[in-house]
């Protein structure tokens, strides 16, 4: 499998505060990697640096071999994201938002692509509805449709199912798995839902205080550390990272 994302010695400091502390990891094509950690662990900071909206203090980020610092536009063309804290403008309709972002991402056959995504994410009925009046779950689906517009090679999802009901969340998980399974791209996924992470992710990275403490297959990790569930492992890492033998 080829790498779609390669992060090396990535660091972000805000004055004396170290938000991300020299982390390195890769995401392969067709792979879903979970980025886990307690609030303030540095997950969103990492994602923002990969998206090019936050400058790292040190380290490099390559998307399909393109350095985000020197080839930003070309690298970001292959990327997309959906985050619970970044809803699309509420004063535009679902179709208008998708059209505008489709133009920005240079999507070919945009009209057909939008129609396909509206169907795929069950948004047909909301095509001409302003995003601001949609429920949070519907807005999340619009964000996911936007994230899929350019068939990204690297998909960044920051708590993508946080406001979805269980049925819709399961449906979205299946779609993301399908996306990765096709081998078109890799996914970096953050979530606080450990059951979801265990179901979806091929590999997880446990982040605490800006450092990667654990890395591996989510099912194997919990047994390796003698925990019943991934959630137990998460709590152990969040509460006492040193108990796992890491500083």
């Amino acid at each position: 499998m080829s790498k779609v994302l390669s992060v090396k010695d990535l660091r972000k400091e805000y004055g004396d505060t170290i938000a991300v502390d020299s982390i390195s990891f890769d995401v392969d094509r067709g792979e879903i990697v979970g980025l886990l950690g307690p609030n303030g662990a540095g997950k969103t900071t990492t994602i923002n640096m990969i998206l090019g909206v936050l400058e790292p203090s040190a380290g490099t980020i390559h998307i399909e071999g393109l350095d985000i610092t020197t080839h930003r536009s070309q690298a970001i063309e292959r990327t997309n994201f959906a985050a619970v804290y970044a809803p699309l403008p509420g004063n535009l309709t679902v179709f208008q938002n998708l059209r505008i972002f489709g133009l920005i991402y240079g999507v070919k056959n945009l009209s057909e692509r939008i129609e396909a995504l509206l169907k795929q994410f069950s948004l047909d009925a909301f095509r001409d509805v302003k995003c601001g009046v949609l429920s949070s779950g519907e807005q999340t689906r619009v964000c996911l449709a936007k994230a899929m517009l350019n068939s990204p090679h690297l998909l960044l999802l920051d708590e993508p199912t946080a406001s979805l009901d269980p049925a819709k969340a399961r449906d979205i998980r299946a779609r993301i798995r399908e996306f990765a399974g096709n081998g078109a791209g890799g996914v970096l996924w953050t979530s606080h839902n450990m059951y979801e992470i265990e179901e979806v992710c091929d590999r997880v990275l446990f982040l605490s205080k800006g450092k990667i403490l654990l890395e591996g297959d989510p099912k194997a990790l919990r047994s390796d550390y003698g925990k019943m569930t991934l959630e137990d492992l998460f709590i152990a890492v969040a509460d006492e990272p040193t108990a796992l033998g890491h500083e």
Partner: protein
Amino acid sequence: MMNLTRASAIVLRQCYLMRGSPARVLPLFAWVAIDVVLWGFITRYFNTVVSSGFNFVPTLLGAVLLWDFCIRVMQGVTTAFLEDVWSRNFLNIFATPLSIAEYVTGLVLTSIATSCVGLIVMLVLATTVFGLSLFDYGLMLFLFLLVLFLFGIALGIVCSAMVLRFGPASEWFVWPIPAIISPFVGVFYPLSVLPEWMQYFSHLLSPSYVFEGMRMIISGGTAPKTMLLCGGSLAVMYILIACWVFARVYRHAVRTGLIARYSAETLS
């Protein structure tokens, strides 16, 4: 390399927003129309009380029209930028392949469209209702409009940079800026009436050359080409400086994380 399709997405966004929003369409022409009507009647009144036979219409009403055009251009850029502030869209918009040059180009293209609406309304009202003759300015009118357009663009980009740097609340610094500049550029009076220290600033502002030139033409003379060249060169220089300032501010916002957490206003 500049991708105009990406820049056009910013224009399309503004078109979508205007299509369903009278609150956005009305200001394009309502305030300039009110200004023209108000100053139209004032000039008519002045023409009746001053016995010298001096025609105030091309001097005062013409000046109002030109200055309002400059303000509209500035607000065209700033308002398009503020749409991203109001809808908290920075993260979505700047996490795309859109470059800063393409984004600013989109804002400028939007401003060209919106300011033209205001200009047309002002011209129709001023000529049909108050008898302003554009022939009074001759071909120089196009140069006047060009210099004011360039200055308005520069001002709009700087104001957008200011809001990006200091947060959403600094929007309120933006709106009075034309009013602060107007005494220095001599919209209604020759620069010679200003105290010397104000005149120094006036000579640094490109609209000053437009209004001085306009008055020269109205009084039967000609506006020296060097004067307008000076005004035009200054305006071009201001655009380059404005783009540099915006790029610097954006880079600062990316370095500090302000783009991702813009509602926090400042992270320093």
